[in-house]
């Protein structure tokens, strides 16, 4: 089994490298960079929702927190390495505290959604109204609705004058996404990840097996926030400005739509959903005939109605049905199982 996994991983790396190399021929790297960043953001929610069963309406909060942490730290430090690290750890810590409060308080499903939604709103309102000169962290003014411009952007570690921007930033972001993808893959194959999936399936059973569900959900939630934070920091470097809009509800809703359209419970789905829909939005933004959000809404409705599992699972099952001997054996096994079922039931 481990050998086939290895082969699959190698194929993923090769495919990713080819894509990273070929995509700039089709789309400008400036646009690609943000698509990759959105892919990472969607993957963060795909991890905690699709595999951990935690529906977070406030993933944008961690994204924005990562971006703001980076901007504020970069102004104070004057280089990018430490701010990048902080941009991962601050949202993770924030999520750990918030998560502990929710999961140890036994909040579930809807209430969890409400709390995360409200936290995002609070952050949005707070940052939006921090224009006054009294809102200063070190040398960085929060700037209210104007956001924070003019911070030190990504540089080669140890060399603050060697900026990474343009094409180079695209490659850094793409490799970072690949690294995060494999981190998530590794996590899901580890005992922790497998048990997290168990929690998604049946929380009571997992706790009756002797696992502390609350602690495990809190940790997973924090990991998701760390990834969102990294995406936020990269976004700050791409946009070279951070604004309260990062915390907006629209942003949060969009992440959820990306995951649903791409396919929950897969690693690739959220990335594809995010990149695809964000690119579509970019194309639609070039015309003024139809409102953008209207089309996004229609897409979501159509997917929920006709392709509720999302693109990736649908394509995967189509692929299995049409190609490969392996799938043949599998379906034979399934037929056998069904026979066992009917014999017993």
């Amino acid at each position: 089994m481990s050998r086939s996994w290895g082969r699959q991983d190698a194929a993923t790396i090769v495919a990713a490298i080819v894509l990273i190399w070929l995509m700039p021929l089709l789309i400008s790297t400036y646009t690609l960079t943000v698509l990759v960043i959105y892919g990472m953001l969607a993957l963060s929610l795909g991890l905690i929702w699709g595999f951990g069963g935690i529906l977070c309406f406030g993933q944008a909060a961690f994204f924005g927190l990562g971006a703001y942490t980076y901007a504020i730290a970069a102004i104070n430090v004057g280089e990018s390495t430490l701010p990048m690290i902080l941009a991962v750890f601050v949202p993770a810590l924030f999520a750990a505290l918030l998560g502990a409060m929710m999961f140890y308080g036994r909040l579930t499903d809807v209430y969890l959604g409400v709390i995360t939604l409200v936290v995002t709103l609070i952050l949005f309102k707070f940052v939006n109204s921090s224009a006054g000169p009294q809102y200063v962290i070190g040398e960085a003014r929060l700037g209210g609705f104007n956001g924070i411009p003019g911070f030190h952007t990504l540089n080669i570690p140890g060399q603050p004058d060697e900026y990474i921007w343009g094409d180079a930033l695209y490659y850094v972001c793409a490799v970072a996404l690949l690294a995060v993808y494999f981190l998530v893959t590794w996590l899901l194959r580890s005992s922790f990840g497998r048990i997290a999936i168990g929690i998604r399936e049946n929380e009571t059973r997992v706790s009756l097996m002797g696992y502390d569900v609350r602690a495990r959900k809190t940790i997973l939630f924090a990991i998701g926030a760390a990834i969102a934070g990294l995406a936020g920091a990269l976004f700050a470097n791409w946009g070279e400005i951070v604004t309260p809009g990062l915390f907006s509800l629209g942003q949060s809703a969009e992440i959820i739509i990306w995951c649903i359209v791409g396919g929950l419970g897969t690693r690739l789905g959220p990335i594809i959903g995010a990149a695809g829909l964000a690119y579509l939005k970019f194309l639609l933004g070039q015309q003024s005939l139809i409102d953008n959000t209207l089309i996004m809404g229609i897409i979501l409705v159509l997917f929920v109605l006709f392709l509720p599992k999302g693109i990736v699972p649908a394509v995967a099952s189509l692929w299995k049905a049409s190609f490969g001997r392996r799938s043949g054996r599998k379906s034979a096994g399934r037929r056998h199982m069904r026979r066992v079922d009917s014999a017993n039931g």
Partner: protein
Amino acid sequence: MAETVLETTGLTMRFGGVVATDNVNFSLKARELRCLIGPNGAGKSTFFKCITGLLTPSEGQVFMRNQETTGWHPHEVASLGVGIKTQVPNVMDGLTVVENIWMAARRFMPSKEASDKAQDVIERLALGSIAKAELGRLAHGERQRVELGLVVAADPWLVLLDEPAAGMTAGDVDRMSAIIDEMTRTAAVVIVEHDMQFIRSIASTVTVFHQGAILMEDHVDKVMSDPIVRNVYLGKKA
């Protein structure tokens, strides 16, 4: 005599004005098999939930191997080495049988050994033909059997089963009796059960609950022939 592995003193659970279990003193020795019976609403399931930590009792204490576990969370109780099966099958529907059992074993051993343990349990419970199937696709009896597998995989010294034979066919029940019989070699077992046929087949000491309290405690044959018990519970003869 064998040590006491489970003991409750003055265990009381109130829901508003209703006293579901009333001052229950219960004790169980190592490797003992005990069935809890009683009419609907007698307090068996509430008693069960108080022991497993699914409910926190209003009054009284629970001791496991002389350690007080009153008010513990279910995962803390389970961590002691207590295997629990709830009334409604609690399994992970989206995962395979192997993955389900691996997860139960993984709590007490490293991943690799847990895989071996899962294979071992699958052989012992004759789950081989459905090992790679998703739980959601299985029949009720099979799901119940897999859930027993989850309990067995953790090598518990105390097993608590809430209606393990509910909704099962005769063949499934026989298999279930055999598994429970095997369990009692290493663990004390408490079974909450309605099915008198099933209780007779595993022939054990029975504790009868009535209106939240223990009515009597004796061997199944004596209990069955007791006039008071017959009155409250077996009036129509099972």
